[in-house]
């Protein structure tokens, strides 16, 4: 992108300066600090330094010309780059401005590159970009006068999503598997499971929630029936869930999440384009750095039912409350699929040993709807002591003699708390 070195302000009331020397010619490469020219006013002469490196692509004034202050004196760019026609000042040796000493030089000086201020985009394009975490200023516009319109955002989104997908799989909105958990009316309650689980994990809880809303579960990427993305990461996970919800028209909803799913839910609640009415977060990840790294690696590596069960027992406080079927289902879901590999990749991007690499504390500060956090005091996966210093608007319930799965070990109470949050939202 072209940058200009301007004719310096040579005196308080002076609008012109004479170019007495040019130390560069077209095609020269300059570095920051090089003296590129000399100009003089009636009172003094000035050396003009390059403030950045680049190739000289245009010299609007020749030696001996009278130049207008704050107009481009030397224009730098990439080799071969040219300056837009409309922005070109006179190249013929005599600068047209020099003939009009009365004109105010700064008022109408056309800066050469206006991409910052001249940025144009449609409101819809901005909304969709924001929801998907795309920096709209980096896109190329195909609309009127280069405005960025919806199709520009969509093309990036589709391209980006494809690059996230495993070979042969389309990771568009449909790559997030969703299923109704209970029929109902009103704003849907969407459930997001934790790391290594799937939407079926919610089945024991839904009947304990005394509201009539439609209840929908979804599988996070690389979980359940949602394919593993090629590139894994917390932001991508949030983005694909947001895209899926918007594509399904579920923009007004309540969110209930567990562990990693709770972290996803918390960030979704701050996304433009989604109207999240309430948040219930169980044993949320992202509140502090600590997580049980041994559990994560052991859980991911376990290949047999006894091994997996041994690790999964640390999910609960009371061993009897872990259903054997849950262990078998987890194992079955991994067999013959790429889920385990996808989950390992995901784990690497989310955690480093016993450290969580992402935080939802900023998101929680922004949440403006009823928000409730439920944790078990005996949680052996994410220690419950990381729930200190939460924003005042977040309610916190610490349940004694409960582990990482409060919705399993304290279903009636958790169901009641979900209902209260939903009704308040």
């Amino acid at each position, binding site marked *: 992108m072209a940058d200009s070195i301007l004719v310096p302000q040579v005196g308080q009331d002076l609008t012109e300066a004479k170019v007495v020397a040019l130390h560069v010619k077209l095609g020269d490469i300059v570095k920051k600090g090089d003296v590129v020219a000399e100009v003089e006013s009636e009172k003094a002469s000035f050396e003009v330094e390059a403030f950045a490196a680049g190739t000289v692509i245009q010299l609007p004034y020749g030696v001996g010309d009278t130049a207008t202050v704050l107009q481009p004196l030397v224009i730098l760019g990439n080799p071969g780059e040219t300056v837009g026609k409309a922005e070109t000042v006179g190249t013929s040796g005599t600068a047209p401005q020099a003939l009009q000493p009365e004109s105010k030089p700064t008022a109408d000086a056309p800066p050469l590159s206006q991409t910052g201020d001249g940025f144009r985009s449609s*409101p819809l394009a901005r909304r969709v970009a924001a929801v998907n975490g795309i920096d709209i200023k980096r896109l190329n516009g195909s609309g009127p006068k280069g405005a960025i319109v919806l199709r520009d955002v969509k093309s990036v989104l589709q391209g980006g999503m494809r690059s996230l997908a495993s070979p042969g799989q389309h990771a568009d909105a449909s790559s997030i598997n969703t299923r109704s958990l209970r029929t109902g009316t009103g704003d849907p309650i969407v459930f997001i499971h934790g790391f290594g689980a799937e939407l079926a994990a919610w089945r024991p809880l839904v009947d304990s929630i005394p509201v009539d809303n439609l209840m929908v579960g979804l599988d996070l990427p690389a979980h359940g029936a949602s394919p593993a993305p090629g590139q894994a990461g917390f932001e991508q996970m949030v983005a694909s869930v947001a895209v899926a919800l918007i594509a399904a028209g579920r923009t007004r909803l309540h969110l209930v999440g567990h562990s990693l799913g709770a972290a996803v839910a918390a960030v979704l609640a701050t996304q433009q384009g989604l109207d999240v009415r309430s948040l219930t977060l169980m044993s949320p990840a992202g509140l502090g750095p600590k997580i049980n790294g041994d559990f994560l690696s052991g859980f991911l590596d376990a290949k047999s039912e006894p091994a997996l069960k041994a690790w999964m027992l640390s999910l609960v406080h009371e061993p009897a409350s872990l259903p054997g079927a849950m262990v078998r289902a987890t194992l079955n879901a991994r067999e013959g699929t790429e889920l385990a590999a996808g989950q390992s990749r995901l784990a690497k991007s989310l955690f480093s040993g016993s450290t969580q690499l992402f935080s939802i504390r900023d998101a929680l500060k922004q949440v403006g709807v009823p928000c409730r956090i439920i944790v078990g005091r005996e949680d052996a996966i994410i220690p419950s002591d990381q729930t200190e210093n939460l924003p005042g608007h977040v309610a916190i319930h610490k349940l004694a003699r409960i582990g990482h799965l409060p919705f399993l070990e304290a279903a009636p109470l958790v169901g009641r708390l979900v209902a209260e949050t939903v009704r308040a939202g």
Partner: protein
Amino acid sequence: MYREALREAIDEEMERNKLVFIIGEGIAERGGSYKVTEGLLAKYGSLRVRDTPIAEAGMIGVGVGAAIAGARPIVEILYIDFAMLGMDMIVNQAAKFRLMTGGDGRVPFVMRTQGGAGGGVAAQHSQSLEALFYHIPGLKVVMPSVPADAKGLLKYALRQDDPVMFLEHKHLYMSKGPVPDGEHIVEFGKGDIKRSGKDVTLIAWSNMIPRSLEAAEALAKEGIDVEVVDPRTLVPLDKELILTSVAKTNRVVIVQEAVRRGGVASDIASIIQEEAFYDLDAPIEIVAGLNIPIPFNLELEKASVPQKDDVIAAVKRCLHPEQFTARAAN
């Protein structure tokens, strides 16, 4: 036909309710300048179908007074331009009475009149003045575009209790379309999708509906799928229908025959930008009449109000047309 649909509505409501009567210039003996009231004098007699002198202020005053007293008058004004003589009765009396009596007094007054350009009847017989009434709280503004709506809306007007500006269009009287027999009611505030489409929402009313539909058909040949939304009543306005359509297409063209300045189109555009800003992928286009009195010369008259090509051009502008050249090339 549109005029027959109107006659059917008046006839059926006069039959149904003895309090309905109609007055106007040449509406009894001559059957009305646009033949809307033909045959009604013979059927209902001169007490309920009555010619008046050329005195719009008096006719409108009589209508408003009769409505306050409990009757259901229809006052036919030959040209909407002439209704200006009755503005005090409409704006300061009819529109205010309900509020100022705490809701005890109602004014079920229906003024039927027609506006619009066409036919070289010049500046004093060609105006589209719906914005004047739209601006006054307390008035309902109804602008049917097809025969079925004309019947259903007029029947509804004669059953509700507030003053109604029932604005017909001189070009539409001879237009044809299916009209349901008997009890066919169109409630106020319920718009209609006259053509469904997915690329652009085109909002129009009255005579701009047939014109917009023609434009839509021409655009369809180029692969552009236009949704034509007819609010049918401007007050009350069916915002839901409009916003739902905008959410679908993300682009809006509003077409009005009336002059651009201070028009209903501008107000609808302001509602859309306020309530659906983040659904918009292009600036809202307004196609409207020029800010001039309608010229007498037929060519100039045509140039002063929106034509099919103007609508087509506006639709293409808001579509960033290269998208469609690309589609056509595929």
